[in-house]
């Protein structure tokens, strides 16, 4: 073989090797797993809406309802595409596909948070049928406030009344938003007892007693409607509690809890508002890393901005964090003033019950039922009345601040 021919052969083989290196991942992916495409058919029927979701291959899915969004999560490694077709429906407003770190999410946004759903699935070919049924409520206004505002910017909310509130709300002076309804949420209930004290006191009983006293205090002192998420010893799902607040167009949401810990010594009162699991914790985490170890540097999670947006969109409460923190501050100050319990301060945590509330919302943790001394206090009528009075004073200060024109 002539020398030049050999060189050309080697070079061409090297070229093939190189190009296959570059293209093989693409080719391999395409060959092994075609990206499934999902299609959604939407059809209204009397009293509800039927969604038929079809895909080219079988998919693992799970459903979750949060406010007025029904999320279908598909766990698939091969990617997913959504073939959008236009539709019109009374109940379903929009359908979008989003990606979370662990799944593809089909977000079905409805006009009301008050709906129930049933589902059935068929395989080969994959077909998931979901039926949404609106829940008729006598008192509920025709169009409840949307549970997931699309522009969750904390600064906008103060000045901008939501359009829905303007339409359906009673006439207000100059279209300014006014506080009308306060929703009190007595923590736990029914077979869900909450924390237990050493003397057998149950969190659910104390929270209901305090809530009743708070309701009386508000009705005595202010011209506001008070709605309780439970009036008796009943089990109410957490999402339902936020839905009750939104359907009643609550202007404030106060969840009352009693704390518990493995630490018997743990004591004091604290007030929470929602944390978004990323914002300020990110900075606290960074502070911790800086002070502790150099090898932790590469452990800081790179937070995907799209994920963050999705989280914000999914949580109605994210639009009200600024006001919620203000409300928490006032209530905590009054608790310190009136109760003589240790000041544990205002804190943030990802509380389920707060995520869906579309208004300023706080969760009060009064004393520790797992601390025998505080448990005794929590049993006493006098202490309960002082807790109610402190929360009442705190929210009253908040209302005065926001009532000013």
């Amino acid at each position, binding site marked *: 073989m002539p020398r030049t021919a050999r060189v050309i052969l080697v070079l061409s*083989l090297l070229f093939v090797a190189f190009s296959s290196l570059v293209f093989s991942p693409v080719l391999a992916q395409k060959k092994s797993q075609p990206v499934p495409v999902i299609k959604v058919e939407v059809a209204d029927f009397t009293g509800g809406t039927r969604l038929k979701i079809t895909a080219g291959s079988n998919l693992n899915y799970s459903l979750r309802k949060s406010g007025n969004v029904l999320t279908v999560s598909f766990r698939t490694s091969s990617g997913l595409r959504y073939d959008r077709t236009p539709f019109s429906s009374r109940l379903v407003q929009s359908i979008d596909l989003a990606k979370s770190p662990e799944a593809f999410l089909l977000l079905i946004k409805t006009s009301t948070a008050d709906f129930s759903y049933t589902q059935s699935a068929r395989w080969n070919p994959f077909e998931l049928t979901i039926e949404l049924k609106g829940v008729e409520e006598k008192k509920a206004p025709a169009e409840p406030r949307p549970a997931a505002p699309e522009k969750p910017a904390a600064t906008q909310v103060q000045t901008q009344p939501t359009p829905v509130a303007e339409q359906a709300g009673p006439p207000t002076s100059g279209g300014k938003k006014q506080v009308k309804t306060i929703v009190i949420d007595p923590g736990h209930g029914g077979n869900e007892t909450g924390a237990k004290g050493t003397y057998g006191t149950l969190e659910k009983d104390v929270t209901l007693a305090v809530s009743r006293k708070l309701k009386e205090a508000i009705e005595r002192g202010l011209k506001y409607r008070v709605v309780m998420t439970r009036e008796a010893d009943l089990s109410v799902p957490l999402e339902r509690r936020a839905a009750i607040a939104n359907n009643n167009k609550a202007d404030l949401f106060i969840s009352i809890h009693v704390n518990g810990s493995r630490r018997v010594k743990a004591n004091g009162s604290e007030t929470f508002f929602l944390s978004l699991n990323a914002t300020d914790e990110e900075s606290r985490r960074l502070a911790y890393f800086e002070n502790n170890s150099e090898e932790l540097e590469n452990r800081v999670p790179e937070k995907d901005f799209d994920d963050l947006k999705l989280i914000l969109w999914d949580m109605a409460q994210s639009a009200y964090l600024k006001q919620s923190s203000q409300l928490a501050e006032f209530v905590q100050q009054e608790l310190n003033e009136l109760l003589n319990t240790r000041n544990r301060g205002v804190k943030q945590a990802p509380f389920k019950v707060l995520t869906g509330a579309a208004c300023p919302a706080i969760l009060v943790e009064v004393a520790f039922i797992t601390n025998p001394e505080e448990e005794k206090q929590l049993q006493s009528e006098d202490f309960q009345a002082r807790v109610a009075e402190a929360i009442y004073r705190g929210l009253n200060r908040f209302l005065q601040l926001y009532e000013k024109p």
Partner: protein
Amino acid sequence: MKRKKKKLTTLFILLGVLAVVVLVFFFGGRREKIKHQAGPAVSATGSGQVQGVKTKRVTIFFLSESDNLLHPEEREIRAGTLNEEARAVVEEIIKGSRSGLLNTVPETTRPRQVFVTSDGTAYVDLSRQILEASYYGSSGEMAAVYSIVNSLTYNFKSIKRVSLLVEGNERETLGGHIDLSRPFNPDYSLVAR
């Protein structure tokens, strides 16, 4: 004769190149997945040999009686794949403290499955006993959740967040407070300095 030998060598080289080409073509696309399954190699600093079994030193967070914070406790676990090591860490959390710190989860809990996805989410599936604690106020629940979350993220670089499941299913909360429907990022503000 010499010429023939040279020709043969060239042929072998060409065959070798071809073999590489073929191998790369078929397996090139899977490199990423393989890398992840292998998990992190046992680090030189945090490993040792105990009775011929390769071990790895890990830090577990428990609750302290003196403050409301999580405190570290060092342990040796058997070295293995990422999933095995993550499971061992969860088992150590359930077994509880040896230095007088407080356990954060009921000791009767069993880890059903622990696995880490390629995007860095650790799924920790626990038996229903995790729900049976009388001390699940907000503080108790925070301690339970974040002792697991922080212990896993602290020890394994490839675990970025942790999702908790109970009996194989998603749950709203453990005891009515902390939202379990989203994966948790670590929160080291709950850890003692």
